[in-house]
């Protein structure tokens, strides 16, 4: 079998505003038949990426090739390129002054010069496909959110696009209506439609896609198969995002760091996440024993420690991670008897690993009220 052809190539794409840079350096190749879920925290540039691909936003750097044509070149025929790309918006954007069928017919008739009757027949076919044939002559305002989004998808399909960009298609919907829209998109995936889907529906993203882009810090931070991204993310931020982790982060560089400040921060973090007081005290104890009693006395003046506290809402558990450079050093072995007792009573799990001069200690904190 031939390798599927590349539809979109994105190279060093950059989008800067005066104060923020939603995209700093995005690189990607999208092949025919790809269904790509784009996930990531809010404001990480997911929507901006989609909007740059069909030039609703003008990129400030880099290039985008569609079927080998650079659309970022200012000589390109942008409307013609857009006709090959459908876009489904978060807020549907059906044309309010037209009926549903008129919404669907408008672009094929105006832009592809299809005969009205043909466009209507095709429109009705699409409406049947999305289950809205009986709403053909209704105005958008008569439709529910889910119906509007399905009509919008039908409108996009009427142009026979090579690829469809979905910009958070279910974010503006009632939870009860999300399913009907997602199943339409699933159907399209089954039919082999190439799609880029920005979504917050993680389960859906995992089911429907063959590739997942995790976007963060203005780039595609991690890319992989759904299994890889959702089961075994390679990178820290991806893992934190996938597990909905709330994270507190501290970088300690000196032996004489402000110990009380970190103590206070832990307290504050715990309160904010509504972690029980007992757990907070346990966090502080583990930090104190492992850092103040075990790590610092054994180190020379140089110290390079990254400390994170992670709280998972899903199973209300807290994990502390210590990553420090130096020779192999298992902190728990360095504790004296009293320290060891304290630590044991506060921990539910403990692991230590060492590679390439980097120690990693992961502690599960015992909870309780």
């Amino acid at each position, binding site marked *: 079998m031939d390798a599927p052809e590349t539809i979109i190539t994105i190279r060093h794409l950059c989008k800067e505003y005066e104060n923020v840079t939603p995209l700093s350096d995005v690189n990607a190749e999208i092949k025919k038949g790809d269904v790509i879920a784009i996930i990531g925290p809010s404001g990480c540039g997911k929507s901006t990426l989609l909007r740059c691909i069909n030039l*609703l936003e003008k990129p400030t750097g880099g290039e985008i090739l569609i079927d080998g044509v650079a659309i970022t070149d200012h000589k390109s025929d942008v409307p013609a390129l857009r006709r090959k790309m459908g876009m489904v918006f978060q807020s549907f954007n059906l044309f309010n002054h037209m009926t549903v069928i008129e919404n669907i017919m408008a672009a094929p008739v105006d832009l592809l010069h299809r005969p009205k009757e043909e466009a209507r027949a095709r429109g009705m076919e699409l409406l049947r496909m999305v289950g809205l044939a009986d709403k053909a*002559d209704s*105005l958008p305002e008569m439709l529910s959110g889910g119906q509007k989004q399905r009509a919008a998808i039908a409108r*996009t399909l009427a142009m026979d696009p090579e690829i469809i960009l979905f910009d958070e298609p279910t974010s503006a919907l009632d939870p009860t209506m999300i399913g009907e829209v997602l199943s339409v998109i699933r159907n399209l995936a089954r039919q082999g439609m190439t799609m880029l889907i920005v979504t917050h529906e993680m389960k859906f993203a995992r089911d429907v896609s063959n590739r997942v882009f995790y976007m963060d810090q203005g780039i595609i931070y991690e890319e992989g198969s759904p299994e890889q991204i959702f089961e075994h993310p390679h990178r820290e931020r991806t893992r934190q995002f996938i597990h909905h982790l709330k994270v507190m982060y501290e970088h300690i560089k000196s032996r004489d760091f402000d110990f009380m400040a970190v103590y206070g921060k832990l307290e504050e973090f715990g309160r904010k996440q509504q972690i029980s007081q007992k757990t907070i005290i346990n966090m502080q104890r583990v930090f104190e024993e492992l850092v103040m009693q075990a790590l610092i006395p054994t180190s020379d003046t140089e110290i390079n420690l990254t400390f994170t506290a992670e709280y998972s809402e899903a199973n209300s558990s807290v994990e502390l991670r210590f990553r420090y450079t130096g020779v192999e050093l298992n902190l728990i072995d360095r504790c004296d008897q009293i320290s060891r007792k304290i630590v044991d009573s506060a921990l539910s799990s403990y692991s230590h690993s060492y590679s390439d001069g980097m120690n990693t200690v992961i502690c599960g904190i015992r909870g309780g009220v």
Partner: protein
Amino acid sequence: MWDKGRGVNMRKSIIVLIILFILTGCGKKEQKEITSVWQLDDSSYTIGYGEGHSAYYAMKEFLPNAKLHSYPDHITGFEAVKTGKIDGYAYERQLMELAMKEGLSGVHILKENIGKPIDLAVGISPVTKIPDFENKINTFIAEIRKNGIYDEMVKRWLNGDIYAEMPEIKKAENPVYHLAVGTTGEIPMFTFYKGTELEGFDIELAKRFALWLNADLEFKVYNYGSIIAAATSGDIDCIMANLNVTPERLESIRFSTTILSVENTILVKNTDNVALMSGFKDSFLKTFVRESRWRLIVNGIGITILISILSALFGTVLGFGICALRMSRNRLVNAVSLAYIRIMQGTPMVVLLMIMFYIVFAGSSISGIWVAVIGFGMNFGAYVSEMIRTGILAVDKGQMEAALALGYTKPHAFMKIVLPQAARHFLPVYQGEFISMVKMTSVVGYIAIQDLTKASDIIRSRTFEAFFPLITTAVIYFIIAWLLTRVLTMLQNRLDPRRKK
């Protein structure tokens, strides 16, 4: 529909009631009988006079204690005396006598004159293009005085008989000049309309002078208030309209040698009460039928509708243009368009119209109707641009984006998607602005256009009766506005998908 119909009837009856109220006047005080001009030299009396008329100076000198009140023309002044709004109206005796003869009732003329007889002359534009004009007109006047034509004219027009026959006067065959004569068409005997034709002493004088001068002749008809401005701006070469020589006028224009002298006196109300309408049938015939005066009304309606529609078209196109500038990202362009809008919104329409006619287009050969269309269009455009802008801003940005994403070009998307939705927001306001513009066109008389209002003024100047022409005018404006509203409502319904279905 039923509700609307009732509304229309109610509006009509309210209009009629209000006009009756105005015409009959209210809160009349008990009045002593006035028998002499000198009796009026008292601050408890108010006397009316025509804007710029010599009677004003006479009263200032001889009745210094009376309160004075200016009126746009003598017809309105006579009506004000009749309804008791003022105690007397100072004007030319001869014209008062004619008005009485024509059926003006409930009033009488006092015996004494105020001051000396005053001179009537031809007003000469200081910027006329005809060389040596003053000398020429004076020579001409001297000639007709000598050869008897002058006496003939006086006998024909000024013997108190308004129905004199206008003699046939040849036109210049190979004219070397173009003579534009300003007149008012509202003074019986001197310059008035018989049917749709101008006649009278001044008109005959103008025709004879044009022939003598070997010039082709053009009459331009102005309101009293704007005729001097027309002469100073060079829009006309001279004024022949029963023009009084007054000190104030001498400052801005020149005068020929005296043609006639007339006496000023005062018209006062009779002490017995008068009926408002003197015979419905008679009034109707006088207003519409006699001399086919309805033709003036019909022509006036045509002009009013023409100006309204052309101004609306021009203004709408202009409005779109200004709106585009107003929404531009360029700050300078934006500021300029905003300034334009504020200036237009802050300038009274009459003033703008006069500026356009007497300053901007002064001396150009463009017709008054086009000046009006440009003036009203400019004003309307300012309002339209703000309406459209508000309408466009009310359309969600996503609509444009969705259209662009489908592959529409920006202008195509604007026309097909944004504008129809914006129109639903701004059409109701547009309709209101349009109707108010239709009514505003009633001021075009200031720039020598005979619209509906001017036609009704002309008829009033002949019949000396206010009731019929005014009511008719009001009703006709109402019908025009109503018809045009219907047209716009139909358009609005077509753009509303809910009603279309």
